[in-house]
């Protein structure tokens, strides 16, 4: 155990002596929070919408009025020529086109599935999903109001119809994206710090030759591994706390749930990232290679985590693949704890998934690391 102490001490001395490391650890997260917290916005406002009404009845006009009056939409035109809608879309002059077909009011009255057609600019899948969400919410409300006006319906049926809301907006009622982004940022920054520092830290020693020097000493490979991961795990936790403080000061967003639970879940999560760092060090001879591999894994990890693109918006096959991504679970857990204050009991499936992945990745990495030593 004494050997591990000296390894850890050495690592901390090196980290705190390096201006670059201080920058990576303390300045970079601040910038990331400031920039991402403000720039990666999933708020979709000022959507330009073209409306087309082929029904021209009181009911269709009422629906259009509601859409046009929504704070999220700017109606640029009410068209009477259907073919013009696609022209607007093609020229990117509208983000959204809504068409009410003839016979809408008749279908509503007959309760025979009235339809509204919506065309969304899908280039930005994320905004598209949210824009559709707005439309859905407005239509839903419209539905509900019509049903309320209808005398024949039983109360239970009404209730059931009305509660149906887009769940995505539940815990972020103002659709303020920052609230949603911030817990994600903790996950991303923690991933970056632990994967990169562990991987690069080991490979750097390979490059300068000190790893070989360490390998002729009587220290065991598990001591060497502990000596490498303890410092970066500790730095990871310090990092989480720093981010939470930054976020509270800058955006006034605090943790709704238990901070010890949040740290506990983070501890499980970094088992995977530290393992990945060790694994990367076994397949890289130089720091450049390590950097490349780290990015390679992290791009997939982040893109398939639901941080930028909601998983529900992904193709089904990709959605299945995201189940293999521990970051996906950690993101859910962080958002639950941060925003809803969920207790551990509600987070068990995700927690167990992370434990399983963590143990698997970490064990594989350590086995590979030991094989490579001699």
């Amino acid at each position: 155990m004494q050997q591990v102490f000296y390894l850890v001490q050495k690592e901390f001395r090196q980290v705190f002596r390096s201006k670059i490391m201080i920058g990576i650890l303390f300045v970079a997260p601040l910038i990331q929070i400031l920039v991402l917290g403000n720039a990666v916005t999933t708020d979709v406002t000022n959507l330009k919408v073209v409306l087309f009404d082929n029904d021209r009845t009181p009911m269709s006009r009422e629906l259009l009025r509601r859409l046009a009056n929504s704070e999220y939409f700017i109606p640029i035109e009410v068209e009477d020529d259907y073919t013009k809608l696609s022209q607007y879309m093609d020229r990117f002059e509208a983000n959204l086109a809504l068409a009410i077909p003839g016979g809408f009011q008749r279908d509503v009255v007959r309760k025979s599935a009235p339809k509204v057609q919506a065309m969304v600019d899908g280039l930005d899948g994320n905004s598209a999903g949210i824009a559709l969400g707005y439309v859905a919410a407005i239509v839903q409300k419209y539905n509900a109001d019509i049903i309320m006006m209808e005398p024949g319906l039983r109360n239970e049926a009404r209730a059931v119809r009305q509660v149906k809301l887009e769940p995505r907006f539940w815990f972020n009622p103002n659709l303020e994206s920052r609230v949603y982004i911030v817990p994600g940022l903790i996950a991303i920054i923690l991933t970056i710090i632990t994967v990169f520092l562990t991987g690069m830290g080991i490979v750097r020693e390979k490059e300068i030759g000190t790893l070989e020097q360490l390998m002729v000493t009587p220290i065991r490979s598990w001591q060497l591994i502990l000596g490498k991961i303890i410092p970066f795990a500790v730095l990871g936790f310090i990092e989480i706390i720093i981010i939470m403080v930054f976020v509270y000061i800058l955006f006034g967003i605090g943790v709704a749930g238990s901070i010890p639970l949040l740290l506990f879940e983070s501890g499980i999560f970094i088992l995977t990232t530290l393992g990945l760092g060790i694994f990367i060090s076994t397949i890289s001879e130089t720091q450049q290679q390590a950097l490349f591999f780290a990015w390679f894994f992290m791009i997939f990890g982040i893109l398939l985590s639901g941080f930028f693109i909601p998983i529900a918006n992904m193709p089904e096959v990709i959605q299945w693949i995201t189940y293999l991504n521990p970051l996906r679970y950690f993101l859910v857990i962080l958002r639950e704890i941060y925003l809803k204050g969920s207790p551990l009991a509600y987070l068990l499936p995700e927690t167990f998934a992370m434990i399983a992945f963590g143990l698997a990745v970490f064990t594989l990495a350590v086995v590979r690391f030991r094989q490579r030593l001699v």
Partner: protein
Amino acid sequence: MTDKNAVEVVDLVKRFGTFHAVDTISFTIRQGEIFGLLGANGAGKTTTIRMLCGLLKPTGGKATVAGHDVYREVPKIKKSIGYMSQKFSLYEDLTVKENIEFYGGVYGLEKGQIEEKSTALIRELGLENRSNTLTSSLPIGWKQRLALSTALLHDPEIIFLDEPTGGVDPISRRSFWKLIYDIADAGKTVCVTTHYMDEAEYCNRVCIMYQGRIVELGSPSQLKEKHNLPTMQDIFIQTVDR
């Protein structure tokens, strides 16, 4: 010098794919001896040393170091040897004192022992004024001597030095060799690789490696007599040229 063997190597082979980096070599190093492994770049010196230090598994053959088998008793070997790799082996971003403390700690010395050794070592090397400066700021000659001293902290029986004087000026090389003599005088065995043939003259016995094989083995004077040549330099050129 005694007649016990510190290192015994019999038909040792290391293959990388189909390439024989070390090709069936045999030699022994006696206790207290300064043994030189000579050869041009790529001759197989580093590969040989790494197998003896337990850093690389041999492909075939037998070898013992301090009586321990290189296949099965690597942990025991590690306790009995010191090693200075071809690459620089100290942390440039740690101070002189921190480097000594670190390696002492990793070798399992106790805190008091580390303190004691590091003070003595810093005094011996004349680094009193520099013990708290970063190792990167030391001249290369001093760095090499410091590296050697840290490799000796745990008092090993045998010490392997892989091109310890590469890139070092002649004056520093002399003082480095003085240190090697001190080590041998203290009863330790030294195995050193070099491609400076003047350094070969300082060794008790040498072997010359060429393309993974040993082509000459003996004391410098024996070899000079055998080939009837005045210097190791001439012998090296002749053996490698034929």
